[in-house]
């Protein structure tokens, strides 16, 4: 067990001395996850709101599909995106394989059902009297939708934070679509996998600590938002 303790101290050293390789992986992770979260929020919140707000034919089936996709295995998403972006694939000409945008596409597919599903749940949980209260004050259609969205903000944000946690910690998509290229597409999780295989525990533990810190922040945010909601 000494190697874990030794790795822990080396990790602190790497972090506080600003080790380039460590910070490159951290930055790659933050860039790609921020990009994928931005895309999934822009698409997912309106779709989730509509799914939760409106009643339409086959709504239950749509809901079951979204809920199923929330448990989409990351390696399977990685495989699908790889197949799309490879030279033989339909989007091969775009040259996105083994790039950060390529990983971002995969992570968007991972986060989108989570954002849609949890946004829809938040909207469904909204007090049914709220719509009447807003209308009774003279809102037009647009004002009512925006006001309802604002009232569900805590639930929707909690969903977004949960999706962000999933994106930050996934390894399958980053490994398969990104290729784990040093200084380029190496993210925290792929770096941990590689360094552990090489026996470089210090780097692996350091990156693991960063992920833990991010996970802590994510959970702290969820806890705060739940209390507010």
């Amino acid at each position, binding site marked *: 067990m000494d190697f874990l303790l030794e790795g822990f101290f080396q990790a602190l050293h790497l972090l506080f001395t600003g080790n380039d390789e460590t910070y490159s992986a951290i930055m790659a992770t933050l860039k790609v996850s921020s990009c994928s979260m931005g895309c999934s929020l822009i698409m997912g919140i309106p779709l989730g709101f509509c799914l939760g707000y409106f009643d339409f034919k086959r709504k239950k089936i749509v809901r079951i599909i979204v809920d199923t996709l929330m448990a989409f295995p990351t390696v399977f998403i990685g495989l699908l995106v790889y197949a799309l972006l490879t030279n033989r694939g339909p989007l091969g000409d775009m040259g996105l394989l083994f790039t950060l945008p390529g990983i971002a596409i995969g992570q968007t597919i991972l986060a989108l059902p989570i954002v849609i599903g949890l946004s829809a749940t938040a909207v469904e949980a909204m007090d049914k009297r*709220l719509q*009447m*209260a807003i*209308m*009774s*004050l*003279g809102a*037009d259609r647009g*004002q009512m939708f925006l006001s309802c969205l604002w009232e569900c903000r805590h639930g929707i944000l909690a969903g977004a934070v949960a999706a962000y946690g999933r994106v930050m910690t996934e390894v399958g998509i980053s490994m398969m679509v990104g290729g784990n290229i040093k200084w380029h597409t190496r993210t925290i999780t792929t770096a941990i996998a590689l360094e552990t295989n090489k026996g470089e525990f210090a780097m692996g533990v350091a990156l693991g600590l960063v992920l833990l810190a991010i996970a802590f922040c994510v959970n702290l945010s969820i806890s705060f938002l739940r209390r507010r909601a």
Partner: protein
Amino acid sequence: MKVETPIYEIRSLTHLYAGKPVLDINHLRISDSSIVGIVGPNGSGKSTLLRLLGLIERPSSGEIYFNGRPAKPFSNDSRLHITMLPQDPILMKRSVSGNVSFGLKLRGNRDDLEGRVNQALEMVGLDAGQAGEDFSMRPWYALSGGEVQRVALAARLAPRPKVLLLDEPTANVDAVSAQMIKEAAIKARKEWGTTLIIASHDWQWLHEICDNILHMFRGKVFGSGRENIIFGPWRKFEDGAWGKMLADNQRIRVPEPPDKASAAIIDVFSVSEDESNRGRDIICLSGTVLHLSLDKGTGHVFVTLAVGIHTFTISMTDQQIQAQGIYPGKSLRIHYSPDRIKWV
């Protein structure tokens, strides 16, 4: 002669829930700046009518005209002039100030927002800076039930609406909050000429303030709201007569009803202290005077009596009241003729 356009006009309106008719109003006019009360038992369609007048729902068929123009949910001509306080209002997840200013912001009215919010809160008896704290900054979850109701009313008053619809505004609050709500509604009418349409079981209050009272039963509007309505079920007694037995062995006698659940409109034509026989076809029932209230329309006095679990009301002049020495708690007998009973 110029014909005044009513603030509301309803024509051939019906409304269905799950295929079942809940409202059926052929024609109804409500004058601008009037106070209209709506009375009726639970499930009679009062809240549905208010929701339709508040443009919250679209009627299944028929038209509602607001200021002479057809009005529909979200229509710009009308939605900015109407606010409605639902029976069980909720606040949005904002501060008191955020809630009260919401309607103003919807209308793009951001001038002197704080002043308008404070004025609306003062109208409902909630001082913005009460007890050394800024009440207007309190979050939605830190309010009592009565405060929620009053803040919700303040939010409806802040935009100074042309029409304020109140659905059982005092049903779930204490006496102090109820009084504040009543005063605020009257003040809105007095200061801005707001038309008030109030559904309430507070019969006495409605008779004191309303220009017109509508009675509702089974989705229909009828009468002036001053009738004595006794709801079914009715039973047939062994002697072949129809009626309802009261706990003190008195019997409300009626002619055979159209169906057992029908409601009877009973016209009480006089009260007396003695048990003198008024004729074979006149029914006398003993009761106790509950309260006296002023009929705003005629200047007469409404005498309300409890007969068993039912209440009966008769309109009398103040001379008649004085001559008979009527006061709350006094035992009297009411007289009605079964032949003059109408069924709803």
